């Protein structure tokens, strides 16, 4: 137990989020995967902070809080965009959003 286990959990979370973002077809589930990746980064920041790898004692926690607020803003705008797109296209599938290609 220690810093390594937290970092490995964080890497696993990031990989799961990355797989979900790359492989899912539903736009909302892709947004959830982005949240998962941001959470993984937050976990590693807080873990580094807890084991005193920063000069300032609170750097990791401050960064984690800032990342959380950015994630909230991103989720808000992303979900509003997705709902607006779904309202016009009537599907959450990202494969169907091919207007620019045609």
């Amino acid at each position, binding site marked *: 137990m220690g810093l390594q286990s*937290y970092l490995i959990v964080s*890497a696993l979370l990031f990989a799961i989020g990355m797989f979900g973002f790359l492989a899912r077809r539903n736009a909302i589930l892709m947004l959830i995967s982005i949240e998962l990746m941001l*959470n993984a980064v937050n976990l590693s920041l807080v873990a580094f902070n807890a084991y005193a790898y920063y000069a300032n004692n609170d750097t990791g926690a401050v960064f984690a*809080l800032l990342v959380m607020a950015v994630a909230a803003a991103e989720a808000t705008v992303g979900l509003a965009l997705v*709902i607006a797109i779904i309202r016009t296209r009537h599907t959450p599938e990202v494969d169907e959003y091919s207007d620019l290609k045609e």
Partner: protein
Amino acid sequence: MMVCFGSLAGMYALLGAPIVAAAQVLIYLGAISVLILFAIMLTQAGDANLPSPFHRQAILAALAALVVVGLIGWAVVRTDWGNATVIVSIVVSSLAESLFTVYALPFEILSLLLLAAIIGAIYLARRPEDDEQANS
């Protein structure tokens, strides 16, 4: 998803950062989960004609994710982290002090970003007929 966010909050509490755990519960469990639930409720209108929930590049995506976790795990295991055994708890008052002195500029930029996000979300969430009226 909500279980995952909640257990992350538990991990922050274990890591001696109860204020981050509280923020995690408030923001993720309270706000973002409800937002995503509303979005799912608004969009899943019963037409479940999905052939598969995954792209056809799902195998490639799994491969990429495995490569990433392998690289990070290798780096984590191979690095000498010193004697990192003591967990340093966060004192909330000193955290607030550094947040408002050293990191005051990111804090203000963040408030501006949140304002822009709110305005953008309101603009995007308007009804389409309002847009047509505004355009004509």
